[in-house]
């Protein structure tokens, strides 16, 4: 396996940043997030980032087109996305699989989302194996391998003193070839991942949920939810968006921004009718979407076990506890 001394990783990223726009995990004001590479800053590789990398493909707000009005006339001008080759370094297995989920949403089923596609097509993914499992991590329970990220071009393995590299695609081979002079062959073996403290059995849950829409459980589960939407903002797979506009005089632009199914306005129609009027319907929809509807539509769960929502929910809503409740629930 090709490897680099851990102390020299920054050197590799520096070289890479001459050829690509490189995103890597950093701690910014105490918050772990993916940010553009900066030589003078220390990488944050101890744990996963609090903020998932989804905003690199699907920014929190994204301008779509400009317009200008003059009397009854209107001009529309699409805002071109810059096509920059980029690399995301250090994606964990949970977040790599979330990108696979987002690909299903934005690039399949009849329409391709041009804004997402442009960024996605120009991005190489470099996965980073986890050797430690965080207190709220449960990716293995969701069928993922913390050492082997789905869909990445290059997988980085922790060899102790070195980072090892294994290409998973031709583009990944290309990266290794390009920076070959910084790498050396090693016989060191990857450090295995610790035992997960958090485990949950999701077997049969999607099928069972399809018969649990009217179950009294949802009333109980939703009672403590504050509707703050933190879970949806931290979730690497949540992808719902709103479209809105900014107007200044006779010109302005239309943009999209992250939205959340936890908000009552989300489904409220102009006439006032709201198909999901209370927390019960909204919380139910969120869990049903992740654990049942998405499976029906795209054949995979919309939860990767990253554990962010349960780590940060102000009222300790815990999707693994919800899954256990579903397993235990009595269904007619």
């Amino acid at each position, binding site marked *: 396996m090709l490897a680099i001394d851990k102390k020299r990783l920054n050197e590799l990223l520096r070289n890479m940043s001459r050829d690509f726009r490189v995103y890597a995990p950093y701690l910014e004001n105490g918050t772990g997030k993916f940010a553009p590479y900066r030589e003078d800053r220390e990488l944050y590789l101890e744990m996963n980032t609090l903020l998932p990398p989804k905003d690199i493909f699907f920014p929190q707000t994204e301008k779509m087109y400009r317009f200008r009005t003059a009397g009854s006339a209107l001009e*529309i001008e699409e805002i071109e996305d810059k096509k920059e080759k980029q690399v995301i370094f250090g994606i964990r297995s949970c977040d790599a699989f979330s990108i696979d989920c987002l690909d299903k949403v934005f690039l399949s089923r009849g*329409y391709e989302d041009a804004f997402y596609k442009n960024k996605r097509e120009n991005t190489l993914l470099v996965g980073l194996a986890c050797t430690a499992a965080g207190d709220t991590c449960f990716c293995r329970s969701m069928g993922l391998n913390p050492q082997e990220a789905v869909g990445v071009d290059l997988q980085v393995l922790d060899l102790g003193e070195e980072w090892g590299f294994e290409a998973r695609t031709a583009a990944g081979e290309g990266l290794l070839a390009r920076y070959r002079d910084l790498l050396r062959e090693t016989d060191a073996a990857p450090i295995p991942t610790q035992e997960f403290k958090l485990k949950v059995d999701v077997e049969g849950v999607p099928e069972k949920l399809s018969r649990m829409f009217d179950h009294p459980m949802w009333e109980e589960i939703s009672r403590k939810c504050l509707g703050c939407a933190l879970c949806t903002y931290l979730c690497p797979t949540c992808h719902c968006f709103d*479209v809105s506009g900014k107007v200044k005089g006779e010109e302005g632009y239309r943009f999209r921004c992250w939205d959340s199914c936890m908000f009552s306005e989300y489904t409220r129609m102009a006439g006032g009718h709201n198909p999901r009027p209370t927390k019960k319907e909204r919380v139910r929809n969120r869990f049903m979407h992740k654990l049942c509807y*998405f499976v029906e539509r795209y054949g995979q769960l919309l939860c990767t076990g990253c554990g962010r929502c349960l780590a940060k929910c102000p009222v300790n809503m815990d999707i693994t506890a919800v899954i256990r409740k579903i397993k235990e629930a009595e269904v007619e």
Partner: protein
Amino acid sequence: MNANPLVPIRGRIIKIVQETPDVKTFHVSTVDGEKPFAPKPGQLAMLSLPQTGEAMFSITSQGPNHLELAIKEVGQLTGALHQVEEGQECGIRGPYGNGFPLDYLKGKDLLFIGGGIGLAPVRSLINYCIEHRADFGKMHVVYGARSVADLVFKEDLFENWPKVENMEVYTTIDRPEEGWTGHVAFVPAYVEELAFKPMTTVTCGPPIMIKFVLQALARMGFNDADVITTLEMRMKCGIGKCGRCNIGSLYVCLDGPVFTLEQLKKLPPEY
């Protein structure tokens, strides 16, 4: 259509028809005077005044060079639309959704049931069936509104449609009114009173009307697979990405808005 499905093309509102005190029909062309796109009956369009907003509307009819959208004033964008004059440019994108199952409907007798502004999407199908009259059997339209003033598409109801061969139009209003010699009843009651034999039915209207129409049709022995309706939901993208118009694992913008009662009974009742 624009290569980017979320970016509208420039349209122009070439004609505005005041249907009722709060419903206007907007005829929309491209700025070059062409039809923005060719929708199937029952499909949808995203119409925008970018300064105000964008929303999904059913396309009620179309001509060689324009689309027609009948819009009730209920919110911000519809309020702004009701203020504009002919010649106003707008954004338009589409068509979206599945539309009515034309192949399935061919050769059948058809019953159309509408209430209020709910006749708008159904009208696209009625007009299609009239244009292809030989392809369909006997057609019946039952339509009602709160008052005479609230009846939409009066020219179709009282002039155009009754003249069509083998087509009956039954119009009703909720309460008696001076000068009205037609029927007075709520739509579901009128449908039962007319005692139709079971046939393929397309219905759209306010949720409460649909609820009672479906109950009436069930009592009359109509088959769930032959009862077709079209739903509305809040939508932002129209292409199955933004998330909000789901009913279970289906998206109304993509998999709907047209569903049979048989399909709806398999979905969560969340619409």
